[in-house]
C-alpha cells in the first residue's frame, strides 16, 4: 500500500522550516508548532502533490501519522477506483 508519510514529513519540514529528520510519524503536530491553519495549508499542498481532493470531514489530527493516514485513505480509494 502507498504511504504518504515521507511526503507529509517533507512538506511539513518545508512549511515549518525545520529539518525533516526531526519529524517522526509519532511526533505531535502541536509540538512542532503546527497549528490548525498550518495543517490546513499542509493538507492543501498534499492535495496538490497527490492530485486528490479531500472531503469535508474533520478528522482529529494529532500526530504526523494521522495526516498520513488521512491522505492514505484517499490514495487507497483512488487506487481501487482505477
Amino acid at each position, binding site marked *: 500500500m502507498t504511504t504518504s508519510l515521507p511526503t507529509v514529513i517533507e512538506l511539513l519540514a518545508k*512549511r*515549518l*522550516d525545520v529539518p525533516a529528520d526531526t519529524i517522526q510519524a509519532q511526533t505531535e503536530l502541536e509540538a512542532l*508548532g*503546527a497549528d490548525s*491553519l*498550518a495543517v*490546513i*495549508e499542509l493538507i*492543501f499542498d498534499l492535495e496538490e502533490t497527490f492530485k486528490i481532493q479531500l472531503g469535508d470531514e474533520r478528522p482529529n489530527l494529532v500526530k504526523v501519522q494521522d495526516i498520513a493516514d488521512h491522505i492514505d485513505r484517499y490514495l487507497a480509494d483512488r487506487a481501487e477506483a482505477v
Partner: protein
Amino acid sequence: MSSGRVVITGLGAVSALGAGARCNFERTLEGRSGIHLLELPGKHQRPGLPAAQIRYALPEAIPVSEQPLFDRNALLGWIAASEALGQSGLGALDQQEAAASGVFWGTGMGGASTVEAGYVDLFVEGKSRVRPMSVVAGMNNAAAAQIALRCQFKGSVNNYSSACVSSAQAIGEAYRHIHHGYAERVLAGGSEALLTYGVVSAWEALRVLAPSPAGHPERACRPFAQNRAGLVLGEAAAAVMLESLESAQRRGATILAELVGYGASNDSTHITKPDAGGQARAMAMALRQAGLAGHEIGYINAHGAGTAAGDLAETESIKQTFGADAGKLMVSSTKSMHGHTLGAAGALEFVLTVQTLMSGSVPPTAFLEQADPQCDLDYVALQARHGQAIGAAMSNSFAFGGSNVSLIVQRHG
C-alpha cells in the same frame, strides 16, 4: 490625571528608498529617487511604467511557517511597526498595560496581491479553489491584526481604509484615542502593497499615472513642476509609536516629538477632484487643535502627488489657511522620491516630517526644475535645506473620495 498630550517615541519605515525610518529620511535629503520601471512577477507586464517598487530583499521579519498568513502588505506593515516598537524601547507589558495599548492602521487595498492571486487561480489557471489562507492574508485588517498579535497589544485595534489618507487618518484617530484617555499607547501607521497587474491596470485606466521620461524613470514624479506628468504608484509601510506623555515619562522613554494637531474634513464636492476649501478646513482644524498660529509652522510635507489638479488645489488651500504666512513656509513633496504609496503615504510622510522637525534638515521636492507659474510657494526645489529652526511642522494627506487629513508635530522639550 492625564494631560491629554500625545508624544512620539518610535518611528519605522520601509519603502522603495530603503528599510528604516532614518534611511528613508537620509535618502530624501539626498534627493534620491526610489522610482524605477515597474517589473511585475509573472508574464503580465505594464512595460515602460515607472513605479516606486521595493526591489531589495526585505529583512527577515516573519518565520517561514507563518508566511502563508502574510500578504506583502502585512509583511511591510510588520517590518515598519516592529522598527517603531523597537525604537520606543517598550518592553513586555502586563495585562493592564496591554489592554491600554492599541494598533490603528491604514491601508487602501489591504491584501491586494493575495486577492488577485486567487482570481488568477480561478479565472486564469482554471483551478477550482484558492489557497487556504486567502481570507486571512487578504482581509483589509490583516496588517493591523498581525501587528497587534505580535506586539500583544490588547486594546482597540482599528483599520482605516480611506484611500490615500488611510494611514494619516489612523495616526490622527490614534492621537484622539490617547488624547481622550481610551489608551496609553497606540502603534499607528499604514501599509500598501498593490503593485499587481490588475491594480496597476486599474490606475492606468484612470489616466493619472506619469509616464517615464526617456531613459530616466527615476524622474517621473515631478510635483508642482511645469512639466509634471502625473503620479507614480509606490509600495511602503510606516509606523509611529504614539504614547500619552505620562506613559512615555513614566518609563523614561526618549520623546522624539509631540503630536499636537489633527484635522480632518471631506470635500463632498467630487469623487476624485480635490477641493481647496476642504483641504483648508483640515489644515485649519489641525492648527486650532494645536493652538498654533500659521506663522508657527515652519514646514509642510505636502500631499503633492504630481497631478495638475492636486498641485493647484493644495497651493491654493495652503494660501487660504496661512494667508500672508504661506509665502514664508517651506513646502515639499517627498513623493517625488518615494512615489505615491497610497494608504501608506500619510504615515510615511509623517515619519519624514517628524525627522525634519527633529533634525532641522528639510527634504526637497526633487526634479522641480521649473515650477508651474500657478504654484508659487517655496517648494524647496531640488536641494535639501539644513540648519533650519523649525518649531512645528505639518503633514498633509488628501484622498480620492474627498477626505483630507492634516497632522501637526511640535518639538518637545
